[in-house]
């Protein structure tokens, strides 16, 4: 499973199987993410991809979509 699929799977599990969204969709705009889930996402990315999310990384744009998170992980692991 590639990074994108892993991220999608985690979010899908959290929001429920019946909710559909694409890798490009803004999950904040769709109302899929509350503030606690946002922190869960941060911890998930850190644990799954061995990165450390720092204060200055907490730009919401890094977390808006599966694609953005995938880019963010790629940048952090480059």
């Amino acid at each position: 499973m590639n990074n994108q699929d892993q991220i999608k799977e985690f979010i899908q599990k959290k929001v429920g199987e019946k909710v559909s969204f694409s890798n490009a969709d803004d999950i904040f705009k769709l109302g899929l993410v509350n503030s606690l889930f946002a922190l869960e996402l941060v911890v998930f990315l850190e644990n799954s991809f061995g990165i450390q999310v720092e204060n200055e990384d907490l730009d919401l744009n890094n977390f808006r979509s599966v694609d953005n998170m995938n880019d963010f992980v790629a940048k952090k692991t480059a």
Partner: protein
Amino acid sequence: MALLEAAYQEFRSEVREFCEREIVPHAEKWDREEAISEDIIQKLAKKGYLGLTVPGEYGGQGKDSLYYAILNEELGRACSSVRSLVTVHGSLVSETMARWGTREQKSTLLPRLAKGELIAAYGLSEPEVGSDAKSVETSYQEHDDYYELNGQKKWITFATRADIIVIVAKNGEHVSTFLVHRTDPGVKIEKIHGMLGTSASGLGLITLENCRIPKDRLFGMKGMGFIQITNTALDNGRFSVATGALGIALASLEHSISYANERKTFGVPIGDHQLIKKKIADMTVAVKAARLLCYHAAEVRDRKDPSTYVHTTLAKYHASKAATMAATEAVQIHGAVGCLNTHPVQRLFRDARIMEIIEGTSEIQQLLLSNYALKNLTDIID
């Protein structure tokens, strides 16, 4: 078989011995006088308890969450007002700074917090805002080289002693958090008297009037004061309160067992009466379940599982309920003796009620738990 490995048991013995010597003899007096002593703050600092989980590189002890659980449990068993200092200073501020502070904040402020040279508090609640934390009315304005804060923070634990207070403030829809010093111009702190429980925890009303602070006092990213800082702080604080509540429940049970073995009615110790046995059984189950939930939450926190907050919520919800139940039954078992203001169980009874209110009421915990369970029950149960 012991629940904990030897190193943790040794740590518990060390903390218990400290509490029995330095805290328990003074707890009723501090409660009546509505203040813990400066001396105990210095002694906590000297033992490293004010920075137990702060990483060693920032001057802390670098201990894991299970050590922290034991510390809070033992402090809660002895005196909840002392435990509440560790909650706000250690959990809400120091741990949150270790996670999200800037390099500068972590290198200059955090070591002083970890060593207890500076004491910190967290200013979230306001006269009109409690559980609905996003609705804070305290405002901030950004200028070229400073922020200006205006508003009031109420029920702020250890505001009367803190050198630094994290202030949650709003600008339009953006919530940000700031590190305000008690000596900053425009800061006024008044003590709140007459609290039901944790009476010695220095609650204060903070008024900020045209309070100007330098730009480097922003704590966390601008506009992320709720999502990033407050959520992290409350999660940290909840763990401390959960384990502190476990300590109250344990103390209530221990006092009850001791009294049930010693007090006689109808020619036998009251522990021989079936209705007292039932109370002891219920309290024992509640305490053991609370301990298991708290220690499990500690383990989940340390492995940095994404679902950490729900396990902490579960522990806090149950442990605070267990504290209320056990302390209520302890007073009942003790009868008139337990109602006297020199007896510890009346203090435990009053302190227990506070556990269901601070760091998110029991009702807020129920909402969090049910919302989570409705979507991801297996993450909680498995």
